[in-house]
């Protein structure tokens, strides 16, 4: 599994297209309403899945653990929403923490970790 992380609008998805030769059909985009579908070649907006988890009282890391076989060969993309100020709302706080924990889990599991900054990539692992 290859993990791509970075801030909003920094070019994470562009990098996935470029480096892994993906097409739009390869990418599943998580949403706050629908959560996630494991098994796609590339799963983008994982931070939307963690927000779905918060809203539906699920543990994001546990769900990834249970579905490990389905994403082991995938490209996973997550926004690093856990770098800013601790938000005031309880949901937003839980969201921030769960995303941070999931990112650490995925980075540990990943064959490669890349951070994207202003369109520039940095290999972290």
């Amino acid at each position, binding site marked *: 599994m290859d993990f791509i992380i970075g801030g909003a609008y920094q070019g994470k998805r562009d990098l996935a297209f470029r480096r892994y030769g993906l097409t739009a059909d390869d990418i599943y985009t998580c949403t706050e309403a629908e959560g996630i579908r494991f098994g796609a070649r590339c799963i983008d907006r994982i931070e939307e899945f963690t927000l779905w988890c918060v809203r539906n009282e699920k543990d994001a890391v546990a769900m990834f653990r249970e579905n490990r076989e389905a994403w082991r060969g995938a490209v996973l993309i997550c926004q690093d*929403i856990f770098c800013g100020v601790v938000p005031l709302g309880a949901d937003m706080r839980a969201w921030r923490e769960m995303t941070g924990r999931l990112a650490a889990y995925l980075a540990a599991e990943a064959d490669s970790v890349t951070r994207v900054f202003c369109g520039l990539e*940095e290999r972290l692992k």
Partner: protein
Amino acid sequence: MIVFLSGGAKNGKTALAEDIAVKLSGGGRRYYVATMIPYDDEDRARIARHVEERAEKGFGTLEVGRDIGSCPSLGGRDATYLVDSVTALLLNEMYPDTFEREADPTAAERCRAGLLRLGREAENAVFVSDYLYSDAARYDAFTENYRRDLASLDRTVAGMADVVIELSAGIPIVRKGEFVL
């Protein structure tokens, strides 16, 4: 040479940008391009203080809040320009006259054209922006659009830059090219 600096607030971006501009300009003319448009006496007092401080470092000041591409025709193509900041330029272009009106949807593209022109025409340019893309918040549509457009301008400037530096806790991390100090 084009240098792009970004990072969080109060990180020392402006101070580092000044040092880089001094180094790049050598004995040549250097301008601090002040992008903030003053709205009250407090703003004006702060600007006056900054102008004085920078004069000691050999910077002239150009007040260019909009149409950033006009800099080389104001100070010459052979000068060094420190543009602080892309963040303010975009906001200024979005509201050409008053904050009462809707944001101008063409602001980002005008801003981009100006930044590219300055980068192309000036001997040296140092651009400063703000990194505001990694927090847990749901923004209103206005703020989200602003964030998206600013990120897009950042990527344009980073793309044309010879050197890209991220400042983290005041420490420069070179993302592209070689550190110039």
